[in-house]
């Protein structure tokens, strides 16, 4: 079963996912940009898969390609999951 896409839960899963794909944990926060975190398109695909497994929310490539910061992705997942 998938969890409910509550803001804190989504934030935690995405932060953990970013760390898993190699972002520096101390640099991860809502305002951080993927560019600054050195997170590339393939990393985002992996994070989208983690989000889908956890919350059942599907993030297509075109959904995330224009998002620059971690917070924007968290907000998108929360809004899609509600």
């Amino acid at each position, binding site marked *: 079963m998938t969890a409910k896409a509550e803001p804190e839960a989504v934030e935690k899963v995405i932060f953990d996912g970013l760390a898993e794909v190699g972002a520096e944990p101390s640099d991860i926060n809502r305002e951080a940009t993927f560019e600054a975190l050195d997170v590339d398109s393939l990393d985002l*695909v992996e994070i989208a898969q983690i989000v889908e497994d956890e919350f059942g929310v599907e993030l297509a490539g075109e959904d995330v390609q224009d998002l620059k910061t971690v917070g924007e992705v968290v907000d998108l997942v929360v809004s899609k999951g509600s």
Partner: protein
Amino acid sequence: MRPDGAALVTGASGGIGAAVADRLAGQGWPVGVHYRSDEAGAAEVVERIESGGGSAVALHADVSERDAADRLVGELEDRFGPVLALVNSAGTRADGLAPQLKDEHWDRVIETNLSAAFRLTRRVLRPMLRARYGRVVNIASVVGPRANAGQSNYAASKAGLIAMTHTVAVEVARRGITVNAVAPGFVETGLTADISSEAVAAEIPARRPGRPEEVAACVGFLASDEASYVTGTTLTVDGGMSA
């Protein structure tokens, strides 16, 4: 080196796929032996692997069906864990000169040889990306890059498979996942039972058809740890036919 996981071989009830399943089992992979109609053939492969001390399970699906990839991979994962090696060997032909080739024959060959291989690849990339390890080997053909009258559908499917292989390879190379193709020439199997070996042999520099094991050996190499820097390429196994 290699994380724990399983290998899925499609079309493994006979021919090249069966030889590949044997080979990968010998290299220590638990193997999903996929078949469509030849249940007995798949059971025989599983039995052979188990009696050699390996692990295997027979899995049934028509890969031309859209949901087959998810189901197949899910079943194998339930049994042996994440699928970290995939060999797409399921393939079919439906020959005819282009003016007479029916939509149904075009579609069946493209679906089975190309679209199904893509859907399976897409599905297994999930566990492979997570594991930072993966081996995908697609059984293409010398027909595709090269013309063969009467096989416009088959040639298009195999050329497409090679192109897909090369592109996916560059997408995932940085994650320790390799994606390659093997292109056999003429191999004696059920697929080529209607073709006279003697007639073809004259056109092969090696003067004989290939054996499934000779193709499987190349797949075994590409699936091994030693081949970790080989990706996005096509290994031709054809007795010199296209040299």
